[in-house]
């Protein structure tokens, strides 16, 4: 699913000084894996996830997604890839205010060029446990519910890859746990999930953990995972070896 090799990303500050956020990152993530990227604040986790999500391009190195080398793609092509293949979940939910849950979920469908399938949006909301809240304005929902709307939105175009940057960062522990359970369930259905966190408790839900320190991979090791069995376990093992 994901192959990065010798990935580097250097930002340029306003005054021209370079900031190396990623130095030399290489790893492979197989289809159906549930991986956390963990590290201290400022270690380069978000920079890495932005590249994996085709929001950013690496300064050097290559990134292959589904066998395609997307590191040199134009903004337009990367937008289409984000639309079809990637679902984003953000730390601060990023739902559109003054908009209902269902309308938020429909957004990715707006950019596919096809019709917007309201039934599908409602079905996904039902699946994340918010069937009764479809017509509620998102500001009326609790944090945990908002994050679940955001996950439903990420699923709208049925992308194979889900990327989440600190999805539980703004939630209390109970809501965080329900969100992690939902992600675990999605993983069990066969979706590839890459999750950024600095929280070891959250990382424990996954099957594999990539530790980032100062823009380098400090460790890449399997985790026990809380959901045992399912197709992911095997995929995880083969992905780590690839």
């Amino acid at each position: 699913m994901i192959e990065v090799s010798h990935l580097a990303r250097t930002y340029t500050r306003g005054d021209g000084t370079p900031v190396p956020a990623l130095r030399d990152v290489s790893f492979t993530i197989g289809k159906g894996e549930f991986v956390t990227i963990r590290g201290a604040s400022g270690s380069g986790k978000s920079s890495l996830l932005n590249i994996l999500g085709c929001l950013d391009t690496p300064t050097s190195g290559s990134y292959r997604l589904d066998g395609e080398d997307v590191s040199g793609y134009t903004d337009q092509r990367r937008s289409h890839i984000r639309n079809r293949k990637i679902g984003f979940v953000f730390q601060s939910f990023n739902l559109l205010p003054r908009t209902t849950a269902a309308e938020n979920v429909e957004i990715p469908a707006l950019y596919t060029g096809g019709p917007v399938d309201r039934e599908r949006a409602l079905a996904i909301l039902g699946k994340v446990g918010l069937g009764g809240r479809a017509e509620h304005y998102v500001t009326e929902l609790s944090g945990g519910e908002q994050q679940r709307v955001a996950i439903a939105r990420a699923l709208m175009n049925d992308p194979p890859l889900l990327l989440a940057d600190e999805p539980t960062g703004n939630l209390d522990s109970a809501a965080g746990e329900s969100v992690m359970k939902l992600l675990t369930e999605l993983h069990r259905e066969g979706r590839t999930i890459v999750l950024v966190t600095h929280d070891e408790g959250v990382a424990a839900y996954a099957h594999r953990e990539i530790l980032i320190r100062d823009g380098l991979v400090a460790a890449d090791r399997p985790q026990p995972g809380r959901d045992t069995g399912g197709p992911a376990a095997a995929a995880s093992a083969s992905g780590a070896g690839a």
Partner: protein
Amino acid sequence: MQVSWVTWRYLAAGCLRQVWRFRLRSALVICCAALGVAGAVTSVNYASGGRALVLEKIRRLGTNVLVINAEQSRAVAGRARTGQIVTTLQAGDYQALQREVAGLRRSSAVIAASLRLKAGFSSKVSPVLGVEPDFFRIKSWPLAAGEYFGAEDVKRSVRIALLGHGVARDLFGGESPLGQRLFINRVPFEVAGVLAERGQGIDATNEDQQVYVPLSTAMRRLLNVDHYSSILVELGNPGEMAGAAAQIEELLRLRHRISEFRPADFKVGNQVELIQTQLAAANRLGFLVRWIGLSGLVVAGLGVLAIAWIAVRDRTTEIGTRRALGATAPDVFFQFAFEAMVLASIGATLGLGLGWIASRITAQQAALPFIFETGNALLALAMALLLNLVFASWPAIRAARLDPIRALKHE
């Protein structure tokens, strides 16, 4: 850079939802665009009304009318006392004019004086003019009611009067004055007619506040004089004005024995000069107003720009989110430009209606003819749409160019 038509259709539907989502801001954009168009339309129509009024005055006055006024020779201040009535414009002069001026079509001698009017219990002092029947033809002045007096009435010095619209209203109120008795300086007259309302004349006299009686009646029965205040001369052809004026000047100087080096006791005026001054002023106003209208549209466009700019700033996170969810830069541009254009178009169209209403009101307030220049209004609409497209594109381009990652980090 191509975005499929289907995408745009769904984006357009989504945009309308955003218009409702930010309804206060949307209302502001609509107001901005509406006021710009309404202002431009109203000011242009106002100027056109003013110009039409001048043209109407010209039409009423005629560009082929000369007025000979008996006048004090002010230059000889030592001898002539101001306020002294000049009595030198007389029947002999008038006959000579009628006989000799080339191209003369109509004429009317006029004697004017301010006299007391009395009808029933109402009373007022008004200018009373003794005139000949052609006076009203020269002035192209129709009647509102009753009948004109004719040559026979002048000949027999009949005591009948035509009332200006204002005098009729002041003396008789809502009642019909026709056939009623009117005392002018205690001499009884019968009201034969009421003239149509004219408004302020080009020379600032209010002809509606005057009373008109046959010339001889005024001279013999009211004032007992044998001179005229003025003579109106209408020529067959406006091109002969200058020649005729010179001819009259020469003729009267000769008859009054005033050498061409001394000030005369009369003045030949043609109103073309006055008209041209007013017309030029009206045209200048029209020009000015077009620029004001255009700058109004630009200011309104800048308002739209400012609001769209604020919208882009406030919705930066939303833009980043949409980009992350798959919106391309053109999608984002389309969204913001389309939103602004929908609102600006609604506003500009409302502005047309608003401009129509405002034009009516200002025309009424300023006593101008109501004119709605459709061509100019549509031009204003088109300009507004074009300006708003340009002005709305700028923030939309900015939105499209935002780096998705930075936009997402924006708080």
